[in-house]
């Protein structure tokens, strides 16, 4: 692979005051993320990784392991407690995006990253139409021509297999699967180099899940967009990702090529995960 798109070093997220000993009593070895001394939740600690252009990185782990926290810190929904994240399309990777002022973070959210949440109504406004939700993204890129906005929205919806008749419907009236497709369209609206996907098929019917996953694969192939895919489902990880990080109690326990991890998990916890799936 070529250039990195994002590199993350020592990402940490603590809920609570924290104390000097939080690190020594939490993590996979202690099977908890709660500090015994001060009660703080160490949701993430020592999380470091790189993502290369055109690559799909998987993050897998049980519920509560910190998967969503990683992408939410990167998308600035949550404030990281510490860490360095460099986004190479932004200022050639010179800045730590985690500590940028709010206006720059907003710029990055609108232009350089897309986020797709498990719950589509976190990424969409239910009281706007599908087209209106996409328009919101396009408008942040200063497109003030109504006709152009309509044409681009229609094209984006077409790519995620949303029938044109849904373009002018309020999002809250659409089915979950349809909302999810609209959310993906919106995330792609300004051609971001990085897409973050958090359990995007978890709430959907099985038949719809397969279609959406296929669609993500096609989009990735066509646009060569880099993605981070979060899932507790190894099936999703196997289908989509090149490389995978296994997370437990806020720490990375294993990190490597997805095929290798699934064939021959080295970490005992990963072995459990893989076997529970078979």
């Amino acid at each position, binding site marked *: 692979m070529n250039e990195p798109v994002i590199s993350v070093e020592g990402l940490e997220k603590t809920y609570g005051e924290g104390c000097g000993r939080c690190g020594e009593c939490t993590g996979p070895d202690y099977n908890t993320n709660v500090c015994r001394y001060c009660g703080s939740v160490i949701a993430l600690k020592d999380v470091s990784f790189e993502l290369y252009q055109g690559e799909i990185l998987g993050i897998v782990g049980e519920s509560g392991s910190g998967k969503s926290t990683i992408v939410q810190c990167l998308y600035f929904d949550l404030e990281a407690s510490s860490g360095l994240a460099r986004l190479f399309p932004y200022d050639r990777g010179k800045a730590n995006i985690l500590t940028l002022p709010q206006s720059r973070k*907003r710029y990055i959210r609108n232009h350089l990253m897309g986020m797709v949440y498990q719950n589509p109504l976190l990424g969409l406004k239910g009281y706007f*139409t599908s*087209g*209106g939700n996409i*328009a919101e993204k396009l*408008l942040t890129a200063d497109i003030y*021509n109504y006709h152009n*906005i309509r044409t681009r929205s229609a094209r984006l919806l077409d790519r995620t297999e949303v029938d044109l008749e849904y373009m*002018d419907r309020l999002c809250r009236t659409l089915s979950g699967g349809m909302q999810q497709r609209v959310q993906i369209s919106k995330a792609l609206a300004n051609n971001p180099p990085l897409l973050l996907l958090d359990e995007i098929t978890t709430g959907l019917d099985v038949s719809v899940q397969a279609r959406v996953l296929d669609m993500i694969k096609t989009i990735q192939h066509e646009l060569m967009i880099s993605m981070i895919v979060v899932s507790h489902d190894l099936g999703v990880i196997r289908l989509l990702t090149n490389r995978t990080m296994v997370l437990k109690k806020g720490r990375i326990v294993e990190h490597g090529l997805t095929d290798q991890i699934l064939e021959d998990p080295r970490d005992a916890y990963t072995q459990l995960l893989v076997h529970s799936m078979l």
Partner: protein
Amino acid sequence: MSTHNDYNFAFIDENAKKEIRRSILKAICLPGHQVPFASRELPIARGWGTGGLQVTLAIIGPDDVLKVIDQGCDGSVNAVNLRDLIHRTTGVPTTFETAQASIIQTRHRIPELPLREDQIIVFQVPIPEPLHYVEPSIEKATAMHAEKDYARMWVSLYEDIVNYGSVTIGASYPVMVHENYIMAPSPIPKWDIAKLNMANCLHLFGAGREKRIYAVPPYTRVEPLQFEDKPFKKEDFSGHVCARCGAGDSFLDEIFDEASGGKYWVCSDTAYCDSRIQKEAAV
């Protein structure tokens, strides 16, 4: 300072006036930006123009000439009450004639006669926050202004066009001031929006309940929000003229005539209408 009826000149005490003037100066420096101010209790109910009234009382001096209008009319109860209050506490002369006034306090209209550099128009504002409809939290709306995060405001226009074919906002049409802040011009009709742009006069806006003051200084660009291919349109009165003065170039009120059961149109700006009738009579 001379006092009238035991009040301080212009009712408000001098310290309070200074505070309000400071907010006004700040507002003038940041066209379209809403500046908080400590709204006072006045012998008039909130919602009846206390914001505009405080601005007027803070800037008025003995040499001023005052005009007060409500929906374009000098004679309505609200306008009469406010004019009386200001007159009684200042002794300044009042007028109905736009050209004679140095300060015009208004609710919902801008006079038809273009204002001059030596005139100030003070607007009574019920809802100062233009983002109010897309973001109910004042704190978040303030952050959106600070970051020029206006996409959602634009989407509300987009959705209007999708649903109704055009933007349906009638009064208080949102405007972009100095290519910087989106501002609520107070509930003036779309007809009056163009008057704000590159005007000769100073515009001051006061919202009493929301405790906000903002301004459009003279010669400032003010543009209604519009998509490039969906131009802003003001009210269309083509085919109608004022039934009193015959004007075809003013904002008209539609009147239902109970006697005949029909409708007719008259100038909303009564002073403009009267002046045209007087001129006609003089000829």
